[in-house]
């Protein structure tokens, strides 16, 4: 008989404990991020889409050699007067279909103080066709890099 009431007490107590748990989390702020309206700040060493600075690049080919998936290709510029290769790039292309965002190209890049090829914090990037994945920068003409709007209205984690 005593055990019967003990069981009732125990069950009732644990039911109320369970309800208190949900009650507490009911009043806690939600951790959901409303994505298009608010965005999380990416970590400092986040590897987003690659960007390229066609003016500082010396066409040294180190990034092409460093790339494990061989997605980078470039052609050095030629001085039209002397017909000799100069330390500038003519065009530079990254195949983002192959790129695995490993940062090895950025580590290999020798330009200072800012690397010519480097990762940005840009991660909102969708492509509809395979040919859009080939992003080409040409020194003498505007590049094909899509105009990516900067992440605004970021919400701290």
């Amino acid at each position, binding site marked *: 008989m005593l055990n019967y009431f003990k069981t009732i007490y125990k069950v009732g107590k644990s*039911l109320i404990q*369970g*309800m208190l*748990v*949900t*009650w*507490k*989390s*009911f*009043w*806690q*702020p*939600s*951790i*959901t991020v*409303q994505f298009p309206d608010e965005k999380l700040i990416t970590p400092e060493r986040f590897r987003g889409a690659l960007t390229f600075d066609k003016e500082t690049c010396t066409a040294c080919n180190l990034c092409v050699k460093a790339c494990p998936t061989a997605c980078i290709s470039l052609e050095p510029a030629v001085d039209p007067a002397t017909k000799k290769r100069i330390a500038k790039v003519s065009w530079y292309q990254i195949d983002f279909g192959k790129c695995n965002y490993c940062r090895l190209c950025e580590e290999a890049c020798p330009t200072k103080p800012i690397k010519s090829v480097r990762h940005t914090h840009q991660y909102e990037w969708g492509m509809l066709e395979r040919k859009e994945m080939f992003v080409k920068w040409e020194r003498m003409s505007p590049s094909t890099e899509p105009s990516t709007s900067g992440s605004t209205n970021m919400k701290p984690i």
Partner: protein
Amino acid sequence: MILPVWNESQKRSALILFGIASAGAGISIAIGEIGARFSKIWQCLSSFALKNSIPTALLTTLSMIIQCSILIGFISGAVMFMVWWERKVSAHMQNRLGPMFTGGWHGWAQTIADAIKLLLKEDIIPAEAKPWVHRLAPIVAFVPAFLCYAALPFGEGLISADLDIGILYIFAISGLSVLGIVMAGWGSGNKYSLLGGLRSAAQSVSYEIPRVLSVVPILMMVGSLKLTSIANVQTGFWRLAGIPLLPRWFIFYPIVGQIAFLIFLISSVAETNRTPFDIAEAESELVAGFHTEYSGMKFSFFFLAEYAYVFLSSGLTTVLFLGGGSGPVLPSWSWFLLKSFAVVFLFLWFRWTFPRLRVDRLMEFTWKFLLPWSFINILITGFILLF
């Protein structure tokens, strides 16, 4: 309790909620007692009919149609609100946000969009189904829920049919919707549906007994089956040396009230097939139980019936245990709605806290625990009334 850390948008939401609450209170005070206004309109209309020799039969028919429309409108509105509210409450209990997009402010129009979607969806009758049973089942499930609302007092003078046997009528009619669920289970031609329907039949029939018996102490105390008189008995306060201590609600009657309230609440949750007792539609075991084979409008009728029963149970709990529409300042109908939705919140809280019971334990719980205790409760009430 952990104090919440609120950021700007949450503070704004809290302010908006406070604004909505105060605006609602202001509007309901401005509207005043709806029941009195309705009876004034009725008097005007009947005197007008007398002057112009319009037959009273026409007038009463018209008033019945209007009452039915008001009830249907109220049920669908309340159900839409409750679905949205359930999604919000469940989301916040899991630290999510729930619907946030449709309609702008916190996804308030989500259920309207969902209802339109359900209306437009294809109506599928499976090849194995018995077409007429399959077609009739949602109607049989919903109509009793609607019929029950006729005898539910929404406040002073706000009752379609003030029956002398109001509570008996509600229990009797709400028992009928089990038939709809069994029909859905059998008519779908699906093993999961059949299992769900059978389980639901067993569960509803078993939980009906402690549910009715838990109300018997109230009936003994009040001496009436009329819901309005039960509600009227609970107005006023218990005073200790002139200071109002507790409202005279039945839940505050010592021992008897609390036991009856707990038994009634638990068996109401079981009657409405909601989560701690949702073996009839157990998602993880039976796909969706009796409404596995239903789509579109028919499915939405089952949904409507479930939520209509949730509000009906909350309203009954309010009338029987929480004093109906009694309360200061605000008119009686807004007190009734406030208390009812507080009980609805309790239903949602149970649903998102407790795991599902096993079938045999469910049966054991009602027959070996709730039923004896409701008998003991009646016994205690008898002793109290005797001395």
